Structures are given as C-alpha cells and as structure tokens.
C-alpha cells in the first residue's frame, strides 16, 4: 500500500506546488506589470505636467525678450532643450507602456511636430527680434541726427518725412500692430526720393532708410511668428490634454486590471487554502483508516467512541489468522479480511460501527445495546463468522473466532485484556469484561512477579529443586530432574508456572537457564547419581546461553556425562537443524537427551527419529488420568511401543497416585516421577519410597 499512497502524496505536492506557482506568477505579474506600469504611468503624468508648465512658460519667455533692454536667447534655448528632453522621456515611457503604445503614438507624433514647429518659429523670432530691435533702435537714433541736420538746412520736408517714419516705427513697435505698415512703406519710398535729391551720399540717410525698410519688410512676419507661436502653443496644450485624458483612461484601466488581478490572487490563495484543508482532512482520514479493508483503524476508534453515549465494544479475534497469511500469503489474508468485513458491515450497517484493531482483530462499536443483548449478539456474531465458508483463490476456508466485550472505558484496553485471557482459556469463545474478573489484578501480579524475578536474580534467590526419577524396574531413584524455583524476599518459594511464562516474554529467561545449569552442576558435583536439566528450544537458539553451557561442560567432562538435557518439543521450533547440532555436540560430551512433554499436542514421531535421543518423557496430561481414561492409555501405549521399537527409554511424569504408578508400570514405562513418588525438594532423596512395588523390581 506504500507505493500508491506515496505517488498520491507526490500528486498532492504537485497540485499544491502548482497553485503556489500560480500565486507566484500572479504576484510577479502584479509586481512587474502593476508596479512598472504604474511607475511609467506616474512618470508620464509627471512629464505631461512638466510639458504643460513649459508650454505656459513660452509666452513669458517671449514677453521677457521683447521687454528687456538687451535680449538674452540662452533662456529661450534652454526652454527648447528642456521641452525636447521631457518629450523624449515621455516618448520612452509611452513606448514602455507596451499595452497602450498605439493609442498614444499618434498624439505623441503630433506633439513632436508642434515642438519642431515651435522651435522653428522661435528661431525665426530670435532672428527677427534681433533685426527689428536694432532697426527700430537705429531708425530712432538716426532720425534724431538727420532731423538736426535737416533742420539746420531748414529742410522741413525732410524733417517731416524722417519724423513720420521714425514715429510710425516707434508706434508700430510699441503697439505691435501691422496697421500702419503699408503707410510706412509708402513713406519710405517718398523719403527715398526726397533723400535722393541731395543726401545720396549721406551714409546716415542710407542707413536710416535701410533700417526703416528692414522694419517695414519684416515687422508683419514678426507679428505672424508670434501669432503662429500662439497657435502652436494652443495646439500643443490640446494635444497634452488629450494625452492626459488618455493617460487617465489607461491608468483607470490598469487600476481595474490590478483590482482583477488582486481578486485572482485572493481566489488562488483561497484555493490553495481549501486544498491544504482538503488534504489535511484526507490525511487525517487516511491516518484513521485501515488500508487493507478501508474501514476505520485503531486510531479511529478512540475518535468515534467520544460520540457514543453508552458504547459497547465487541472485539472479534480471528483465531489462527496468521496461518492464512503464512500459508496463502498476505494478499489472500487481505482478501479474507475483506470478506469478513463485508459480512460484518452487511449485517451491522446502521447498528454498529466496524473497525480493524490489529492484523487479525476487529471491533464492533454499539451504542446503547444493553447488557441483556450481549449474549445474543455474540452468538449472532459467531455464527455469522464461523458458519460461513470463505473463498481464498477458489479454496474454501473456514475461520474460528473469539470475542471479548467491554463497556467500561477504556473499552479497547479492557476488551484486549479479556481477549488475551480468553486465548489462554482455550475453549471459551467469548467473555465480557467486568471488574470482578480481576484481570487487572492479574496483570498487576504479573508485573509484581516480574519485579520479584528481577530482584531474585540480582540477589541469588533462584534455586534448583530436585525431583527424583525412579526406575520402575528396580524401584530405586536413578536420577533427579532439576526444577527451577524462585525464592521471594519473604522466603516464599514459587513454582515456575507462576513466573516462567512471564520470564519468557520479558527477556529474563536466558539468565534463568544459565543459573540453573550452573547451580545444578555445582550441586551434583559432590553428590551421587545422574541429573537432568530442562532446556527449551529458545535456549538452544540463544547463542549466549549455549556459549555458557559449552564452557561449563568443557570444564567438567565427568559431570557432563551425568547430565540429561530435557528438550521441550515445541511447535515454535522451525529449524530443527540447530537443535540437532546441539544434540550431537552434547552427546559427544557424554550427555543424554530427553524429549520433554511428548504427546502434549505437537509431537512428531518423525522428528524424534531424526534426533537420536535417549529418553522420551511422556506428557503429564496423558498420564494424570491414565488409570481411568482409555484414550490416554491407548496413546501412551502407542508411544511406549514406539519408543521401545526405536530403542529409546521412556519416562512418565505426573505420577500422582498409586493407581497411576501401577498402570504405567504395567504398560512398561521405564521410569516414573511424580508427587506420589517424590516431591521436588531443595535436597535430593537418597532412599526409595515405601510405595514402590517390590514386585516390579
């Protein structure tokens, strides 16, 4: 399930990144387009303002030059330069405002034309102004000289002509009008004729007339230029105001676009947020969901329970489900689970919620079911699950299940405790949690024992006890089995059934074995007789434990020859080759090997044959009722016969009564041990029990 969900994650990240990139692009666009464009816009507005201002300065420059005593054209030239500079800046920024380039190009072209025209007019104005200024200056100055001269000659005609011309020029110049120009021209022609009479050679007279002619010929041009400048100026202002209107319009459009863009960004951000929330919810859901079956998982239960007023939890365990997985593969296992889920969902839809709690357990959560219905509901469930045949790749499979029920919080924990307990009580199919079960107390006591175990190991309070094993033929104690005992701090001696299973699960098991081997060996070092020590397959598989045992046995070969290792035949051993190697090695040292608890359930004659063992110890469950149970007797007889056949000695355990003892002797078992014959004790027994039948010897 990992691969697809990872790809999914990849897509999610891609999608989210895509939205992020989208937002980024929008931001960039707003930044680039918006900022740049608005900057250009602002710059354009500024240039237009400045141009408008310069335009309004034109007239004042003209006036200044006309009124000043001595003209200075620098200001005027600078004015022209400034206008061109502003115009070029404006042109540039207009060009950069790519979107509106065409709309204002024509107007800019027109504006450029008016500027060029205005410049021409200004150049002409400068020219004529210099000329006319000098001419009016000279006509005035020369008229005075000439009038004096003419007056001296009492030439009143000349005086009047000179005066008229001078006066007309002065008035025309002052009033800036072309009204009297034709008259002036006429006067000049007349005066020329008058002067020609006797002032032909007079330089001042010629100069006077030359200047008067210049004035008369050019003054209307001078006025026209000013008029045209005025017109051009007006045209220019019109174009500028057109540009401004367009600019305002463009600005408005840009603003609108920006507003739209900001909406887009808002939308994109909202979308991104929605996506994130969506994915968060999905992730949360996925975390609460079981991949294989698509129903809620353990996490989900905790969430859902909160919504129930009166919840009851049915924990359904599929017994031996792990076999399905190991035999058919986990795909088949998943398929089976889905079929189970389908059945449960179909039956309980609307009535209960279904969750998968572990690899092979489900939980059904009911609300306000009522304790009275528990039993009915459980049998319903069991028949629903167990009466059905499941299909695994065409193979019909049936399942077995056990159910625990809890309605006292924490539900799942309580149900689990009950279920664990249920598994140990092999035949019960269901149990209901209640405080009275004392399961917590058991757990508590388990923890307590674990603590005791630890301190016992630390304080050397693990001891071997010895139970005698009698030879049925001689009635004599031939050897002892070394059995582990734990002495509490209070001095109480606890049998292994109370602490060994806990030790097995806690990792304290290996040290216990080592202690037992060491202490048993050291006890028998100066005693008579053989002795047997229990080894589990786990011990044999534990390299450290083996290393210890090897070292101990290597040091004392004589003692080693007296040891029998009792190996528990177990379903857990998958690889008997290690056990086989151990047996070969131990036998090489003179040790003997017994198979313990034979016939307890998983016994396999084939395995025994391959192991070259010396003894078979027949399981107590067969022996304890052998005197009355025909089946037990039959199985025992078979085992004994088999042992005899392959030349292996037999030991029977759990001989708790005379009747049992008599029976096993009759059946031909080689050795016996049991409470009836001898209790385990801290010291070995040296005498035979009186109860041993002498006839058997």
């Amino acid at each position, binding site marked *: 399930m990992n691969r697809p969900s990872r790809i999914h994650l990849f897509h999610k990240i891609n999608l989210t990144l895509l939205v992020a990139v989208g937002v980024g692009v929008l931001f960039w666009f707003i930044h680039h387009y918006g900022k740049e464009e608005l900057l250009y816009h602002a710059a354009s507005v500024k240039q237009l303002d400045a141009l408008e201002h310069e335009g309004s300065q034109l007239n004042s420059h003209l006036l200044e030059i006309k009124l000043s005593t*001595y003209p*200075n*054209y620098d200001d005027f*030239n600078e004015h022209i330069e400034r206008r061109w500079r502003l115009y070029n800046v404006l042109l540039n920024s207009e060009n950069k405002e790519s979107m509106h380039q065409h709309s204002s190009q024509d107007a800019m072209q027109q504006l450029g034309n008016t500027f060029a025209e205005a410049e021409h007019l200004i150049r002409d104005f400068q*020219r004529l102004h210099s*000329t006319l200024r000098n001419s009016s200056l000279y006509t005035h100055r020369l008229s005075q000289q000439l009038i004096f001269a003419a007056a001296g000659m009492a030439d009143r005609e000349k005086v009047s002509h000179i005066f008229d011309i001078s006066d007309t020029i002065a008035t025309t110049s002052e009033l800036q009008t072309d009204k009297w120009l034709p008259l002036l021209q006429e006067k000049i022609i007349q005066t020329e004729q008058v002067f020609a009479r006797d002032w032909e050679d007079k330089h001042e007279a010629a*100069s006077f007339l030359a200047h008067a002619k*210049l004035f008369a010929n050019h003054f209307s041009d001078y006025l026209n230029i000013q008029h045209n400048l005025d017109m051009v100026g007006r045209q220019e202002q019109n174009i500028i105001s057109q540009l401004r209107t367009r600019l305002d319009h463009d600005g408005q459009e840009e603003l609108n676009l920006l507003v739209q863009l900001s909406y887009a960004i808002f939308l994109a951000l909202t979308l991104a947020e929605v996506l994130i929330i969506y994915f968060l919810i999905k992730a949360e859901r996925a975390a609460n969901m079981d991949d294989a079956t698509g129903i809620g998982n353990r996490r989900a239960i905790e969430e859902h329970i909160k919504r129930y007023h009166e919840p009851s939890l049915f924990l359904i365990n599929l017994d031996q489900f792990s076999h399905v997985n190991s035999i058919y593969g986990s795909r088949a296992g998943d398929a089976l689970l889905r079929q189970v889920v389908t059945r449960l969902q179909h039956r309980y839809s609307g009535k209960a919620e279904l969750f998968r709690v572990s690899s092979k357990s489900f939980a059904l959560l009911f609300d306000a079911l009522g304790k009275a219905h528990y039993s009915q509901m459980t049998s319903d469930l069991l028949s629903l699950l167990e009466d059905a045949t499941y299909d695994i790749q065409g193979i019909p499979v049936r399942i077995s299940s056990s159910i625990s029920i809890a309605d006292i919080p924490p539900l799942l924990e309580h149900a689990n405790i009950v279920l664990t307990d249920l598994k140990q009580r092999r035949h019960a199919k269901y149990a209901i949690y209640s405080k009275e079960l004392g399961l917590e107390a058991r757990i508590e006591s388990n923890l307590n024992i674990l603590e005791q175990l630890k301190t016992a190991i630390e304080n050397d309070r693990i001891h071997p006890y010895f139970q005698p094993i009698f030879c049925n033929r001689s009635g004599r104690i031939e050897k002892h089995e070394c059995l582990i005992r734990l002495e509490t701090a209070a001095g109480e001696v606890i049998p292994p059934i109370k602490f060994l299973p806990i030790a097995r699960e806690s990792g304290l098991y290996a040290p216990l074995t080592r202690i037992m081997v060491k202490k048993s060996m050291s006890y028998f070092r100066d005693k008579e007789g053989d002795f047997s020590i229990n080894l589990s397959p786990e011990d044999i598989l534990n390299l450290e434990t083996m290393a210890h045992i090897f070292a101990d046995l290597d040091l004392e070969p004589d003692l080693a020859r007296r040891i029998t290792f009792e190996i528990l035949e177990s379903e857990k051993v998958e690889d008997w080759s290690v056990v086989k190697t151990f047996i070969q090695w131990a036998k090489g040292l003179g040790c003997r090997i017994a198979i313990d608890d034979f016939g307890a359930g998983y016994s396999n004659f084939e395995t025994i044959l391959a192991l070259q063992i010396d003894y078979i110890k027949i399981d107590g469950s067969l022996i304890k009722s052998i005197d009355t149970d025909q089946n037990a007797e039959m199985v025992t007889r078979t085992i004994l016969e088999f042992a005899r056949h392959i030349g292996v000695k037999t030991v029977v355990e759990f001989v708790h009564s005379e009747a049992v003892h008599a029976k096993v002797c009759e059946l031909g078992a080689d050795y016996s041990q049991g409470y009836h014959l001898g209790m385990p004790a801290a010291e070995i027994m040296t005498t035979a029990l009186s109860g041993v039948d002498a006839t058997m010897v």
Partner: protein
Amino acid sequence: MQLGRQLFFDPILSADQTISCASCHQPNLGGADGVSYSSGVGGLKGNMNSPTVLNARFNFVQFWNGRARTLEQQALQPITNPMEMNLSLDELELRLNISDSYPLAFKAIYGSRGITRQQVAEVIAEYVAALVTPNSRFDRFLRKELELTPQEQNGYELFKSLGCISCHNGINVGGNSYQKIGIINSWQGAPGVDLYARTGRETDRDHYKVPSLRNIALTAPYFHDGSATNLSRAITMMADDNLGVRLATNETADLEAFLRSLTGEIPVIFGLP
C-alpha cells in the same frame, strides 16, 4: 575624458593618418587653426572657416549652420567628411579595435568588448565638453572682481548701444541664435554652407549660427570664410554690414579692447596628452 583627449590628438582618425581633430582645433590657436580654410586629408581645402572647440558646449547647436544639435552628433562628422578626415565609420571602428591601447581603454569605461562609433562619439564629446575657458577679464568684471580699463569699458558700452548685443548675447556672447550676415549690406563673398544649405528655405540664405565672441582675439581669421584677417577688420565689417554703422577709429579700438577682455583661461587638458 583622458581617452577623449587621446582620440582628439590622434591622427588615427583620418584616412591617411595625417590629421587629428587637433589639426584644425589647435590649443595654441584658440581651438581653431589660424587659416581661412583648413586643410583636410591629401591637402584638400575645406570650404568653411574652422570654428573653435572652446566653449562649444555652450553653443545652442554645432557647426556654422547648426547641423548637429549636440557635441555627440558633431563629433563624428569631421571624421567622415571627405574634405576633412575622410574616414569611414567602419574603418574607424576597425582601426581602433585592432590598435594597441584603445580596446583596453574603452573596455575600462564601457566594460564591453568591441569599440563602437557611438562610444567614440561619446568619448570625444565628453572631452570637448570639458574645454571651457573661464575667468576672462570680462567674467571677473561681471563678478565684480576687477574693473575694466576705461577703453574696455567704452567698448562694452558701445557693444550694447550699437546693438551688437542683439545677436551676441548669453553665456557665450553669441552662439545662441541664427542670424543673417550682411543684413544691411548683402554679403559679397562666395556663399558658404549656410542655413539654407540645410533647410532649403529661401529666407535662410546667408544665415549662420552667431559665433561666440569668447576668445575671439585668438581665433583670427574671422567669419565663416575667414575673410576678415584681423579683429578690427572684423569689427568694422560687422558694424558696416549688419548695423549700417561706420565706426570711428577709436570706437573700433574700444570695441576690440572689450572683445579682448573676453579671452579666458585655456584649460590644461587642452593639449597633447
């Protein structure tokens, strides 16, 4: 600016590598060349009197007829003019790019490889713009740092009252408008490359950019054709032809004295690098 200076004095800019900018704009001749018409490559005579480069930046346009608006636009024209340096701009770029020193010097300024004509124009214009002549006696008089001599003072008064100032005004005492030469008495000499040559407008005949009068004492001969060999002759001609005034000898002398007060300090950088 040092690079512009180097270019200004380097004959590499002319076709036969005989003429530099400085050939016609000599530091010791007031930024002009002392002859009526300059000699170009192969000894070709030009058709206009070489104007000074000094204070050229204050002229409202460049050349006698204003065919360049800026110094940058001006800078390359004498190089390509067949009668002056007669060097194509392609050849110019080639020469500079394969030269020993220029590629590095240009790279130091522009950071890019390959010298372009535009860069040459900018560099020369930058240099020419620095050629200004401050602190003439007249400038200092205007700043009230000194008194003019009585003769200079008289000349100044005449300059104003006669109307010279109508055209020769502003920072450059001229160089800020086009005017007609021979407005009273038509110009008798051969027509030069006047405004008409550029605009084709009949009324632009004999119109030229009014020359600056700064350093005028250094730049004989005078007028666009160099027809006035000395300053007093130029003053007399101007008064006669453009104002219709016959000056008395002392008036001419006074005006000349005033014009000589317009000679400023030649900048140190105006010289061989």
